[in-house]
């Protein structure tokens, strides 16, 4: 009986603990927040804001097969910070088309995405998402040079606390995607 009760409790602990612990943590946190305020709240998460601005530029300087005349669908893999930051793009236009941002999870259909952004993720996740884009002309944007060797097209790289990017024209070409000369010129590395 006791065992059954404990197991039940373990099952339910998620909910019970949540309420109780939140209360306790709130008190501790309020105390800490008073003594040691984080001075940069207003600017938080702007890493992804900057990256979103980069993505907007990538879209501007990339020639993609047109899937929809009116809108351009930017899909972002899971990470909520990146998705939230990319909301600043949702009113922006690339040519005549307006950008819409969609959060996707693994296994979701990516055919309709014009571009997909995969923030830092496990290698297996990256590989399976990249595999699912093959043949659908999706611009793939990720992080770190490894992203390109895994088949990605544009990788954002941090250098000296600044964001740079590298391009694989080869990976893009096989999906009928091409980059403008400007993008190629600014990239820190290309495979051409």
């Amino acid at each position: 009986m006791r065992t059954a009760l404990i197991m039940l409790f373990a099952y339910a602990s998620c909910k019970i603990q949540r309420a109780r612990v939140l209360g306790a943590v709130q008190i501790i946190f309020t105390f800490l927040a008073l003594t040691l305020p984080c001075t940069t709240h207003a600017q938080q998460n702007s890493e992804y804001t900057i990256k979103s601005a980069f993505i907007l530029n990538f879209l501007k300087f990339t020639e993609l097969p047109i899937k929809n005349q009116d809108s351009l669908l930017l899909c972002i893999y899971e990470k909520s910070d990146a998705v939230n930051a990319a909301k600043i793009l949702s009113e922006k236009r690339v040519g005549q088309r307006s950008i819409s941002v969609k959060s996707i999870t693994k296994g979701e259909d990516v055919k309709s995405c014009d571009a997909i952004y995969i923030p830092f993720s496990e290698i297996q996740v990256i590989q399976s998402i990249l595999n699912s884009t093959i043949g659908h002309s999706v611009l793939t944007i990720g992080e770190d040079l490894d992203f390109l060797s895994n088949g990605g097209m544009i990788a954002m790289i941090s250098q000296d606390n600044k964001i740079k990017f590298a391009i694989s024209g080869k990976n893009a070409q096989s999906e009928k995607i091409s980059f403008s000369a400007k993008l190629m010129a600014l990239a820190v590395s290309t495979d051409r």
Partner: protein
Amino acid sequence: MKISKLAAGRVLKPLLGLTLAASCAYADVTSGGDITDMSLEDLMEVKVTSVSKRGETASEVSSALFVLTHEDIRRSGSNTIPELLRLVPGLHVAQIDSNRWAITARGSNSLFANKLLVLIDGRSVYTPLFSGVYWDAQDTRLEDIERIEVIRGPGASVWGANAVNGVINIITKNANDTLGGAVTVGAGNEDRALANVRYGAKISDTSAARIYGKYYNRDRSAQIAGVDAYDQMESGQTGARFDYKEGRDTASVHGDIYKGTDGLRALTPSLASFSPSLEQKQTHFDGNNIVAHWSREFSDGQQLTVQGYFDRTQRYDLIHGERYEIADFDAQYLLPLSAYNQLIFGLNYRNTRDFLPKTGSIEFLKSSKVSELYSGFVQNETKLFDNAVRITLGSKFETNSYSGFEYQPTARVAWVPSDTHTLWTGFSRAVRTPSRIQDDGRLLLQTVPTDSGVPASVFAVGSSAVKSEILNAFEIGYRAAPAKNYTFDIATFYNRYDNLSNLAQGAPFVSGNRVEIPYQFANQNELRSYGFEALNTWRPMHSWTLQGWYSWMTSEIDIAEGSLSLGNNGRVDPRNQAFLRSLISLPYNIDFDSYVRYVDSIPDYKIPAYMDLTLRVAWKLSDKIEFAVVGSNLLHRSHKEYVGDAIAVSPAALQRAVLGTVSVKF
């Protein structure tokens, strides 16, 4: 490579390897205008502090960390968790027989090695009975393991008691990453039969689940001097996992049920006879556990994680019986204080109830006991000089039913002059709290004749005065990636152990028609050990990876006068170990993988040095089907790696083994 907070010397019991840091990173955007109007050229000049908000990268961690990735696991050819651990630099993984292992980091190995903390998805799996791990009962579908993080050296400031010589953290995949079906079946001369199956599916946009089952049957090892080893094992396990993620919330519930039998043949002392008799009996073990985990990311990078688990295990063998019920609750909070400073703190409560029946060999003052553990920890990380210097200060505080209040602080500094170099050092204090058997157990060791003809029985006797073993550890390490395809990692340590457990002779007394000679658990030994582990990873070609490691260690023990040694005089660890692994991807989707390992002699147990080879050839016919053949212990017909030190397990020699497997996905 992303690693969980454990590895980062931080918290958040790993489970999801969360990318929680997202802190007060800020960009130096001064214009105040819309950043999306900036040109690419200008964007590239914007400075971002704290660029990567992922879990700290392995290369930046200020402790001796090694991560076995999913790919390492897949290509290891291993069928059990202990076998996988052979790949980890510096770990001494010694197979005693078909179902028993002695595993530790940085020395003091034993069948009952008690200074290593092992966790599976945040659940501690050592038995409080002797603070060691029953490796035969620790299993999961290896293909569903995301990664195994191993820290050599103390991790107690975050993980608490028993994270003394190292922490092994096994993290299984999120259910979203195991969709669809997969079956593996195999057969061989030693691993006689193995089969496992998993099926995973999306339940909704925000949740997924999987269910798995596995069966494993291992043959007994070679006879030594005509004595059958009687060490066969057979086990079955099933489990399920559910993952949920919506917005800022992540939750999971998972559990396992397992059951198995082993053979155990050992010299068993008796009160009646002067010479212990060689007896054999099947060991029965089983257990079930359930873990619930929830975390929420708040704005500005704060994160709350709450976890609860219940774990029930039981085991009955030739020597003893035990049943444990453990309930554990844990809450942790991550609080970025500024772009350069973050605080993590947490609270934990554990309730352990045991049932320890009296047997011919062992009995306890109380055959059932409830013990409680309350603990809390706080850890602060500061980044200075443009992130080039990272300072971690923290401590765990706990109160337990055996040794009372314990503190376990750590101070670590890393100097990261560039992305490719990390020099780190750390000082830590960690304790190994007394086990149940040291507290009030009474174990019959031997019955001997006396001059007067009256039999005398020698007992190991627990004592409530037993204190915790204390480690003070000093470590220095250096990690570098001098070329894109080459990395180097060295970690050195100096460990000083005080209050080390020993058995001190007490005064004999007459009990009925016999004399009892008690040896009481005490804390009179001291140990100093030092050594290093060096790891090189080189990728000469895209399709070829070479990984080699070498470890050296030595120790000096001061054994208190009058102590009972049980054969252990402090030379129970190999001084030198070397390992070389090659992973080659050939055309036509063929993998050719091999590793060779050298393990130095174990003087106290007269185990000679040995070298051995494992080969794996796998052919991926399509995305759905893979065939593999694995040969292990290939250089000898049979060899010995260790002894069942604390119990006189019948000696066994491991045999050359070949195993063929087929894996199908559907």
